[in-house]
């Protein structure tokens, strides 16, 4: 028996987008029935377009944000389709991975 046998499988979706695209990702999360998410604003890092500065003091739109959502697999496809469409034109990245949670009712 492993820890997985006691946990519920879920899909973890992490999206890094520009500050002014956060509203769309939140909209997609809501429209896909994903009830909750975690957001870290002002993330810094190096991408294929170069270095991205982290938090700017008085400009929340120009910095990037990380949104993390965990959802049952049956809702993930729609969200992934929407985010892929967004990233066809806008800068950002999406990571999708399997994960396990102890209280699946929190993500229903």
């Amino acid at each position: 028996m492993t820890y997985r046998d006691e946990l519920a499988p879920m899909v973890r979706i992490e999206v890094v987008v520009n500050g002014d695209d956060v509203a769309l990702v939140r909209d997609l999360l809501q429209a896909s029935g994903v009830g909750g998410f975690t957001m870290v604003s002002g993330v810094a890092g190096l991408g294929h377009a170069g270095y991205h500065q982290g938090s700017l003091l008085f400009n929340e739109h120009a910095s990037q944000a990380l949104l993390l959502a965990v959802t049952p697999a049956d809702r993930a496809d729609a969200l992934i389709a929407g985010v892929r469409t967004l990233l066809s034109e806008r800068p950002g990245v999406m990571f999708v991975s399997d994960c396990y949670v102890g209280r699946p009712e929190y993500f229903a």
Partner: protein
Amino acid sequence: MTTVVAEQHDLDARRARVRAEAVLASRVVPVARPLDEFVAVNPLAGFEDQAFGDAVHAAQELYGIRGYLPETSYRALYHQGRIVEADLRWAIRTRPPLEPDGSAPHPDRQTVGAESALVDELLTATIPEPASRSVRTAAEHHDAAMGTDLALEIDQHAIRWCAAYLGAEAEWRLPGREAGLYGAWRDLVVLDPTLDPGARRLLSRLPERSDDAVLDALERLGVDPGQHRCVFRAELSALPGWAAHIRWRAEQHHDIDLLDYLAMRLSYTTVLVDRISDTAAGRAWSATGLGGSASFGMSEAPWLDDPGRFGSAPTGGGDAGEGTLDARHRLDIWQAALERGFRSQLLDSLGGRRSFEERAVEPDAQIVCCIDVRSEGLRRAIEGQGRYETLGFAGFFGVAITWEPMSGGGAVASCPALVSPRHTVAESATGSVREMQRYRRGLDGESGALDGLHDAKSTPGAAFVLAEAVGWITGPAAALRTVAPRRWSRATRWVHRRAVAEPASGVELDGIPLTDRILTARTALTTMGLGSFAPLVVLCGHTSSTAANPYEAALRCGACGGHTGGPNARVLAAILNDAEVREAIRRGVGAIEIPAGTLFLAAEHDTTSDTVRILDPGSIPPTHRGQVDRLRGDLDAAGEQHAAERCADLPGAPEPRHRRHARRHVARRANDWAETFPEWGLAGNAAFVVGPRSMTSGLDLQRRVFLHSYDAALDQDGLALETILTAPLVVAQWINCQYYFSSTDPDVFGSGTKTVHNAIGTVGVLAGRTGDLQLGLPRQSIAVGDQLVHEPLRLLAVVVAPLERVASIIDRNPSLRDLVAGEWITVVARADPDDEWATWTVQGWADHDEGARR
């Protein structure tokens, strides 16, 4: 069962994709905030990742806009001497026509003779007719093929429903509004008597969800999924004003959905096309029209080839037309030459060694004003009154707050649109409980009377009774208000003061934790380069008070979200007077020592009447009263001087015999409800200077330059400069572009003449009774008659700082880099007064005068 689940998953994915496509499509639409929160924005913000010329070209295809002055205007400016030949030749050299294969020009084409030929061509080439919008909606495509008026009909339906849904202040609210635009419309449209029964029957079968309605309509119109975004862009750009406001509401208030709007428009399209298809001609069109080519007239639109980017064809080269330069390239050269003239003059005038000299005399007071170009004139006038030092800083003073006024009026977000309020600050009475109770009673009485009057005016039966009861007095009152606006204003203020005795007030800092107050204080002082302090430091926000002016917010402080800057100044002054804060910033790295005898005081400049009011006078200790009294007198004199200077530019202003008359005149304009030119706002803005005031003091910059104080020596880590270049500079660029495009295209990205404006609550204005919501600034903000007052020049940023620091900031901030690389902003810099100005380019720093000599 598995099939059903798979179908549901597929439908969910299609819904999510279409939602994302709609939002991506909406990025080409500007953001239109309501009138009471109006702040300048770049109407082409969605195109800022492209070079300016490419962005204008893309927007021209979408909206049919003019992104430059007409060529005839440039030629006239050349003949008037405003554009000189040397600048024109410089522009040609720096923007040479490429070879037909797109490569750099051959040296044979860069001789003086070839250059002269290009000058001739610029002056004589045949000017093409202005191109109109080439992107078409499905309905426009149908109209072009069939001679119908479907596009107009759909626009009219959409306008009617949007006005009913969004006009939240309307007395008669749209039934079923809580179901959203699409839900309410779907329930009610089947009762619309302007539609024929067949159309109503078709509309009664629409799906419950707007995303499903959009997907159905796209399928019926035969639109390939790869073209969804193109179709949405065409629909959204048909009525850019309404689309822009819906975009803002969807992003900020979430009480409307872009898909609802698109679903409504596309459903009308399918239904009205279906009705016409019943005819023989309609059947013929259906066979070859939308379901056939599905081009929507957009085959020429560059985004069909690459939905991720608009065209970026190099200028010149293959599309040369009759001469060497095509029309687009000619306009690019003319604009660069026009800007060159202003920029060279400005840079030549900025101080050399004088810029970096220490001040000889300690000032009696320091006055920190907003970077707004209007402050430049006031600062000059104040400095002329005595030993005053002035500084420039973003008018929200680094305090991003939600402000709750004591009057109980609605809380406002008093900060730039780039940030969200971080704290809530309330205004509180400092007087006795009895005073506060009397004030409350007065407020309740006044608001009750006004509410009653409003209800009586807007209730059908009561309106007649009201007219009978008080109509006899409103005529004479209106006449008095028209012929004697200042007296009227004085009288109403007197009545207000009698009815509502306003007690002394202060600001409550409890909502801002001490750590944040310390951070705010340190950031503000470092960013404005304030390291040594006079006994009195005045933080002067600004406001504007005008009568019957829907665009009043556009004249207020852009850094405060279109609100007044006084509250922010009061909050920062209170923070900097806080002993705990002073003690904290005195310690640690970058210690700032504020002398115990230094008092921070808030003030507010009314830019229309040129009065400066000291705020929170109750907070002035006896030690500073004499000095504040002298300052009051000097601020009054400075206001009079500035008003006299402004009168020379205001249309219809008499030549004042005395400065006092000038101030009386501008006060009259502020109170005159028939005045369409209360002030010029930020017209003329063209440059943004980041550096010490000593570099610009003594110069008359004619209220054309944003001035941000900065001292590179106090900012060793470059954080203050990064804050300036990523926030105030960006806001200044929005303002610059708002004025620019309102001037080059007053009909699409300007709101036309005020004289026919009709306000829909605070949503926006219409030009006349119906039509699109008007975007941008009214004509009276940029021109007198046909004569432009605002000369559309892109922003020049002048920075005094080490070049590597400036370049590093640009490189690590992609949005800023796009603006500079795309020529939305030109950045010139130098670290030392002995240095030449250098211009930032993608290849590195270049001598500003490169290309000027041959």
